[in-house]
């Protein structure tokens, strides 16, 4: 069990004109026993970060420490085989020419663990991931989920302090994925191993993580708990990436000590926390998540009205497009039993406490 401290980490690929900064000045402290997720759109540098931590790549700048041991610095990199980490690859990389048992025992053989003890450990680990009885199967005789558990067992059996996982669920179908998700989470809680998890699926990140590092374009955008990054996004990019969001252009009407009043076109007024230094007259964008807008039958209580223009039934949720008199379209999510017909006029309530304000 170990923590990881990353300081000022940068990595470029290529040289000269085609050089490309895959990762720029990353600072990240991953604490012992935590489940930390690197989240971001494709190409944002997640895999690069993970491979830097594993030691497959050497940084151009910055350092990586595990506890107090310096693992990576420009020009001096402890090779992967000497880091004592584990890694689960996106495609599992279960060796097709070895049986489940041989796959899992490989790391123990390398450590010259006596055969009897190795067998015991493999059995324990296979039990941990629910693979008992499949020891002598070849990977092609396993389902995707089972292969993934072999990959997990193979990494776990050597008791790494840190386990790196690169989009391990992205190849699975929705149901299996949901199951593996909770298994992974429980496993991490049970073993106490530090998990560094890479994904571009925000739901997965929210469901699994203690902390989420949201990345974009090779830079860290925000590092915080799931609720923090979802409800208090540091910027537009994060807000947009963490889920559906309505961005309403508005103007600051009044500002005081961290809070204030904004007004959107069409008379929508919201009392909100404001970013530092916002002054009346400033143009801002208000970010509202669809579930923080409530619809109710039109009432004359002065709350803003909107017309339902589209409706999508999504099972556990219904989604509406509500058009404000200003023409601004809001996406709203409600409980499916709360039904409005397209064309209907409704009153909307925006939960101002859940909104964020960004400068455009």
């Amino acid at each position: 069990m170990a923590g990881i401290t990353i300081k000022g980490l940068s990595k470029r690929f290529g040289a000269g004109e085609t050089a490309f900064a895959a990762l720029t000045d990353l600072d990240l402290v991953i604490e012992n026993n935590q489940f930390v997720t690197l989240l971001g759109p494709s190409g944002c540098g997640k895999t690069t970060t993970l491979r830097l931590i594993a030691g497959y790549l050497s940084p151009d700048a910055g350092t990586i420490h595990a506890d107090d041991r310096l693992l990576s610095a420009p020009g001096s990199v402890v090779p992967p085989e000497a880091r004592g980490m584990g890694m689960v690859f996106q495609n599992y990389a279960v060796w097709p020419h070895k049986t489940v048992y041989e796959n899992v025992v490989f790391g123990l053989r390398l450590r010259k663990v006596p055969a009897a003890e190795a067998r015991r450990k493999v059995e324990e680990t296979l039990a941990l991931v629910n693979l008992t009885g499949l020891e002598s199967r070849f990977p092609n005789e396993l389902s995707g989920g089972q292969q993934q558990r072999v990959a997990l067992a193979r990494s776990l059996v050597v008791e790494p302090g840190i386990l790196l996982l690169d989009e391990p669920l992205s190849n699975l179908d929705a149901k299996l994925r949901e199951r593996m998700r909770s298994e992974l989470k429980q496993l991490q809680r049970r073993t106490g191993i530090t998990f560094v998890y890479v994904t571009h699926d925000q739901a997965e990140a929210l469901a699994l993580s203690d902390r989420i590092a949201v990345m974009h374009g090779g830079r860290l955008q925000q590092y915080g708990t799931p609720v923090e990054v979802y409800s208090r996004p540091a910027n537009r990019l994060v807000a947009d990436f963490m889920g559906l969001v309505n961005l309403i252009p508005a103007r600051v009407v009044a500002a005081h000590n961290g809070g204030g009043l904004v007004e959107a076109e069409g008379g929508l007024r919201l009392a909100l926390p404001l970013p530092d230094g916002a002054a009346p007259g400033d143009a801002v964008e208000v970010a509202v998540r669809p579930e923080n807008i409530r619809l109710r039958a039109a009432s004359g209580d002065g709350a803003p009205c909107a017309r339902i223009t589209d409706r999508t039934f999504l099972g556990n949720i219904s989604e509406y497009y509500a058009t404000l008199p200003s023409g601004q379209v809001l996406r709203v999510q409600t409980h499916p039993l709360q039904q409005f017909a397209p064309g209907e006029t409704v009153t909307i309530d925006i939960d101002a406490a859940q909104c964020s304000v960004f400068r455009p």
Partner: protein
Amino acid sequence: MTASTPIAEASARPGVAPAAPGHRVRLEHVVMGAAIAALVILVVLPIAALLLGSLVGDRGLSLDHFGEVLTGRLYLTALKNSLVLGAWTGLFSLLVGIVLAFAVSRTDVPGKRLLEITASLSYLSPPFLTAIAFVYLFSPNAGLINVFMRDVAGLPWATFDIFSMTGLVLVTALHTFPYVYLLASSALQSVDASYEEAAQILGASKLRTAISITAPLVAPAILSGTLLAFVNAIALFGSQAIIGLPGRVVTLPTRIYALFDYPPEYGLASALSLVFVVITVAALYLQRAFLSRRSFVTLAGKGGRPQLMPLGPWRWALFAFGVGVFLVAIVAPYATLIAVSISKSWGLDFWKGLTLAHYKFILFDYNVTQRAILNSLMLATVAATLAVLLGAVIGWIDLRTLIPGRKLLDYASLIPLGLPGIVMAVALIQFWLRMPIALYGTLAILLLAYVGRYIPLSVRAANASLRQVDPSLEESAQILGASWATTMREITLPLIRPGLFAGWLLVFVPVIQELSASILLFSSGSITLAVAVFNLYETGYVEPVAALAMINMAIIGLAIFVANKLGGGGIAQRTTGYGAPA
């Protein structure tokens, strides 16, 4: 891209019209029927004729020929020698091929381009020319290098007798190692790096990873290359005649060839040829069986590029090895041939007799050469084109239809791979001499032999490129209303064009050099370049032979250049990377 599980493969296969019987005849059925008929004529009938020929004796049908072939000391020795030759060549090809492939694709060895060139040139060089050159270098008493070692360097132990099984293996392996090299290096490049990285992070050293992860993963490709080397090694007639006979290493092809000397013994020759067919088919069968059991192996994925293994000082050792192979396989034979071709008479003082007279003789005075060059170019062009078209249809049948027995078709198209040219020629003679059509002695029979013999190469090439074209590309044209012919013309053929051109070259090059079938099938009008070379050699004109050999290589080089200009480029880049599930 992803694992090709049996299910994925099965459901990717579209059901093509043949599933619906009793319809009007459609063009695709005619074309497919024609392709099947062609394969029957090219491969199945000649082999049947061979079988018949081997059974017809002086007293009607009998097994006498087989009896003699399987008990006669002469034949058993030849059989044994062929197997020994195949085995050793396979082993050497394996070692050289794998070391070079690993060096090029997985290490930081310098001069990779040189190693790649060595492999392609070795494949392109006609083995019997290498054999001739090596006789000049390593014949035990007078070979240049042997003389140098013994008389100048004073190292009598460092001499080498080319007229021996070892010599034969050396010369043959120089031609066959590229099979292992090419297959292994493409497999090594497609092994997902994450397999190796997974071992590394568990603590495995680079060497350990290479041995326990990488090597087993590419084993199928290596095996496949080794078996190709084996099968080709025992089939090469030219080098076995030039080196084997003086070294008293009699092999099946030389034995079969001798049986064809006047007066020919067709029955025995046919029986002996069938023994050959059985060996090669058995080898192919083993290979396929082994591979099909392992076809699950998942190569290629979304992993990063493999890292290159830093070798430290060892890289220079590996480099030296590569340069050694280059010197032995390319420099030595070509330098020798060039030297011979410009010497007045080899054996006299070299520097006093430099001349281009031999080039003049073969190009202008000897009226066979020009005809031979024209014939060869024409035959190779036509044969390669036919083979490629046939290959495309056969590959298409295999991959895109549910016709029962399509696997059999694929297998039939592979058999010639194991048919030495001489056996193919015997089979064709046996068959066409009985036919009322006077094909024999014409260019047509050579064409049949070439297309039949090299059909496996074009079928493989077409097969590989068709696999990269997702069936849905064809289906989407179909549902827009395109007929089969339109779909082929507009979609399939343009998409596999680069692959077809590769296949075309793959056939063209060996046809230009084909000797072992041609030597039995050519006639005055249909003499080919390789036969002209061999005839000259057989009658002792070694200097003109060397000159003609150089011209032969020039033609091959030119043809490759032209074909690349015509068929390469452009579209290849556009279609590669178009991810279609295999």
